């Protein structure tokens, strides 16, 4: 009898409400949480955004490390096989180019080809700067091997830039 009276004393709008709201009234806790807190989709989006910005920063740091020392970016990511391979390939190209008396472009070369040459060679990172430090006498362009050496050093830089991009993409999670 009391149960029937309670049922009939309940307010009519609650009974006339659609089934979804009726389900919410039976369990009011989620409704309160949803009304007070930020919507779940925004929370997850913000969390994802924050996480990805950290990831981007680490990816940039790994890329910078990989540019300075070829293969270091992959080594920091735990990709030891690629790290050793890139170090050997870039180092071999750069050292062979230096031994063949290749030309090391400077930032103040004065023309577009010189600037492009500098950008490609500087991609070799520590090998370029070591070459600049060692080769104080300048290039030997009197021999054909000097021209070939220049191509070797430039190729070392380009290959290392590809490795840097690879490490960056791996650190971002977009590449295995």
């Amino acid at each position: 009898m009391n149960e029937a009276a309670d049922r009939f004393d309940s307010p009519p709008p609650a009974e006339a409400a659609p089934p979804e709201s009726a389900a919410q009234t039976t369990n009011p806790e989620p409704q309160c949480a949803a009304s007070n807190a930020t919507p779940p989709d925004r929370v997850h989006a913000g969390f994802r955004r924050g996480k990805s910005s950290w990831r981007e920063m680490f990816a940039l740091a790994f890329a910078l490390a990989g540019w300075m020392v070829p293969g270091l970016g992959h080594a920091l990511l735990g990709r030891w096989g690629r790290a050793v391979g890139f170090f050997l390939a870039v180092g071999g190209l750069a050292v062979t180019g230096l031994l063949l008396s290749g030309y090391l472009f400077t930032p103040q070369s004065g023309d577009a080809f010189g600037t492009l040459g500098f950008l490609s060679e500087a991609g070799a990172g520590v090998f370029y700067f070591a070459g600049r430090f060692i080769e104080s006498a300048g290039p030997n362009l009197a021999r054909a091997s000097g021209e070939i050496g220049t191509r070797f050093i430039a190729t070392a830089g380009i290959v290392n830039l590809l490795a840097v991009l690879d490490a960056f993409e791996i650190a971002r999670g977009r590449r295995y």
Partner: protein
Amino acid sequence: MHAAFAHVGHFATMLLFGLFVSVALACLTRRTAAERVRYAIRTFLLFILIGVAIAWIMYPISR
């Protein structure tokens, strides 16, 4: 050291170039070590083959 490399011929430099670039490309494009070794060997052989073929094609032009 420079003197030793001053007399390295074009073919030897091509071999060195092909070797290093093949290793780099294999590291870039293949995942497992076995795949990388196979790819590097194949690319290196193609470097030599195509280099020699281009040299023979250019030979009549250079004379």
